[in-house]
């Protein structure tokens, strides 16, 4: 039998890394189990001539397509939006666009402001110091002072405007609409051992330069130096409980596939909005017959994805194509509720600089704008290197029928039941998406774009996995309390996107990590009576 650890963290991604680093100063014995391994940047796609092709196979953002041994399958047949993620040290921060907005203060009070969903049990201001700390740790770039976004202080200057940014900025100015250089986690100067961005352009499937922040190169080196133990290729099957209903440890499969039991005094789950409910639902026992921490019945419910409404077109002048990070600017013009629009809440916009030649050819052929035959070459030269995109990140309100359950048949390579997704896009979201597409069309046409195409929703756009173990003060309406502790199990904590009460209209990773740091801080303040 292994010796118990003080704290056992499940998952070494965005939130697991942050909470591990923060708790390290307590000098407790902290162990993190991660189902993936360490990444090798020398093998990242942008190091090879076939860099674009890899995105359709071993570097797909979909675990079902990618099918690495570290991945688990997801049955998302009953969802128009497919789950995308990455399983490794660093988690999905290895594979993301590095776009770095944070939730707005109003996002924490949607019930009060707009009469929908629920207010969060905490306010934005409680997270402010942790946003700042996280931005320093992850290393952000941007321009402070956006009048329509929460005030940030990125330690590095913003990315260049580039060709695409200038075209977008001019069009937005002509329309009188808000835009601003995005905060990103792309290093625009050498920072904390990371080399500055050299515009490899293929940011999403990992950065060979190390300019894009991922927790394997930010938090984890610090956490490990501070004494945290990270055990890779260890897939947790279930969390066990003792006779008092407290978490007693986890059963996991080690790198050789051998079942192990690791006892622990505190368990922290950091597996995000699909992995976390899957683990809780797989942790059934006589005492917890519906899954662990599920007396509310809300584990797995209220899944929020952010339906993306994407519209793009082609201008006559060259754009940045694949020669820059894909995102550069955002807009918060339509972020807050305006009753005249016919829907509540709103959306953020991230503008897209362009695409590489293979992606352009494949997608344009699929869309029917790139023909077969003699005219292929002329049309391709008109499209390639001329694309501009507008992607609206629509706030997804919580609905219990949007859910993660356990698939009765599908299992991962260790025989653990896989997650099943049931999800529909709400009428409110559909109206919001239509509104966004109309605004995007105006922007693109003002920029002179033609051949306008739409992806709404982006089918493989389930990057943001939120809400399936929501936080709240009422144990009947939430899974964890206002500082991340499960209502039902007093030594079990959740620190990932599953605890979001509402989704906001922005990429969530910055807020996920700020929450993880906040919960770690709450734990540190309560060490003497953590289980009271």
């Amino acid at each position, binding site marked *: 039998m292994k010796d118990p650890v003080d704290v056992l963290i499940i998952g070494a991604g965005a939130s697991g890394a942050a909470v591990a680093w923060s708790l390290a100063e307590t000098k407790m014995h902290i162990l993190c189990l991660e189902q993936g391994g360490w990444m090798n940047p020398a093998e990242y796609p942008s190091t090879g001539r076939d860099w674009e092709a890899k995105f359709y196979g071993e570097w797909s953002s979909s675990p079902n397509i990618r099918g690495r041994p570290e991945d688990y399958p997801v049955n998302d047949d009953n969802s128009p939006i497919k789950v995308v993620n990455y399983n490794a040290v660093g988690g999905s921060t290895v594979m993301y666009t590095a776009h770095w907005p944070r939730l707005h203060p*109003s996002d924490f009070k949607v019930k009060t402001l707009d009469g929908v969903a629920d207010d969060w049990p905490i306010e934005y201001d409680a997270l402010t110091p942790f946003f700042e700390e996280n931005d320093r740790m992850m290393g952000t770039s941007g321009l402070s002072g956006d009048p329509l976004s929460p005030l940030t202080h990125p330690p590095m200057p913003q990315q*260049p405007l580039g060709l695409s940014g200038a075209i977008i900025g001019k069009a937005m100015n002509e329309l*009188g609409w808000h835009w*601003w250089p995005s905060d990103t986690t792309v290093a625009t100067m050498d920072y904390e051992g990371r080399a500055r961005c050299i515009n490899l352009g293929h940011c999403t499937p990992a950065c060979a330069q190390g300019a894009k922040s991922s927790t394997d190169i930010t938090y984890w080196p610090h956490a490990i130096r501070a004494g945290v133990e990270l055990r890779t290729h260890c897939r947790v099957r279930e969390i066990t409980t003792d006779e008092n209903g407290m978490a007693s440890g986890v059963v996991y499969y080690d790198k050789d596939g051998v079942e192990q039991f690791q006892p622990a005094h505190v368990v922290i789950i950091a597996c995000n909005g699909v992995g976390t409910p899957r683990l809780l639902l797989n942790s059934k026992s006589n005492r917890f017959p519906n899954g662990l921490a599920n007396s509310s019945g809300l584990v797995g419910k209220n899944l929020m994805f952010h339906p993306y409404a994407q519209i793009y077109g082609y201008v006559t002048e060259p754009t940045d194509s694949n*020669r820059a990070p894909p995102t550069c600017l955002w807009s918060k013009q339509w972020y807050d509720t305006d009753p005249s629009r016919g829907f509540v809440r709103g959306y953020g916009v991230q503008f897209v600089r362009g695409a590489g030649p293979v992606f352009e050819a494949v997608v344009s052929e699929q869309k029917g704008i790139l023909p077969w035959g003699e005219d292929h*070459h002329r049309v391709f030269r008109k499209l390639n290197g001329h694309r501009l995109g507008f992607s609206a990140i629509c706030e997804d309100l919580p609905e219990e029928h949007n859910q993660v359950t356990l698939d009765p048949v599908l299992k991962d390579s260790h025989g653990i039941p896989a997650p099943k997704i049931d999800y529909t896009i709400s009428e409110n979201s559909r109206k919001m998406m239509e509104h966004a597409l109309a605004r995007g069309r105006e922007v693109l046409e003002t920029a002179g774009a033609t051949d306008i195409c739409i992806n709404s929703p982006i089918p493989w756009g389930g990057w943001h996995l939120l809400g399936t173990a929501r936080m709240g003060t009422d144990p009947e309406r939430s899974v964890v309390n206002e500082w991340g502790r499960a209502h039902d199990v007093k030594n079990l904590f959740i620190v990932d996107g599953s605890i979001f009460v509402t989704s906001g209209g922005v990429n969530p990773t910055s807020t996920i990590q700020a929450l993880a740091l906040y919960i770690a801080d709450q734990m540190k303040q309560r060490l003497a009576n953590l289980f009271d």
Partner: protein
Amino acid sequence: MTDQLSLSPRQRDDLRTVSGMIVPASAEYGVPGADDPTIQADILATLGRDGKLVATALDHLARLAGRPLAELDAKGRDAAAQEFRGAGGAPAGTLVRVVLQCYYRDDRVLRSLGLELRAPFPKGHVLPDGDWSLLDPVKARGGSLRRAP
């Protein structure tokens, strides 16, 4: 499971023919077609996990054509190809994608597009900083965050 090693000679012939229909050679742009031997060799060598779907697509195409695609006249080939692309689903999409991803990494093709023959890393690219005075109207307009009461 069918993979690239088990593509029959007939399947390879049809693959070459349909590749040339997707992207024919062009004297105007000085580029080969996707039926070029080097590009075909690249496709066959890198089919990998796509092999099964590509074989399925080629079987579908063979059924539509009823004989080797190259033996049909132009009108017959176009009709078969049109039906194939319209009703071929994921296998047809995979076949087209495999052809295009190999075509648009061929040195001759990239040269004709004015693109460098290299991986993005380690050289990267230079991005112009741009005219940030474009942001002045946004700053001047200002605004405020919505706050909870």
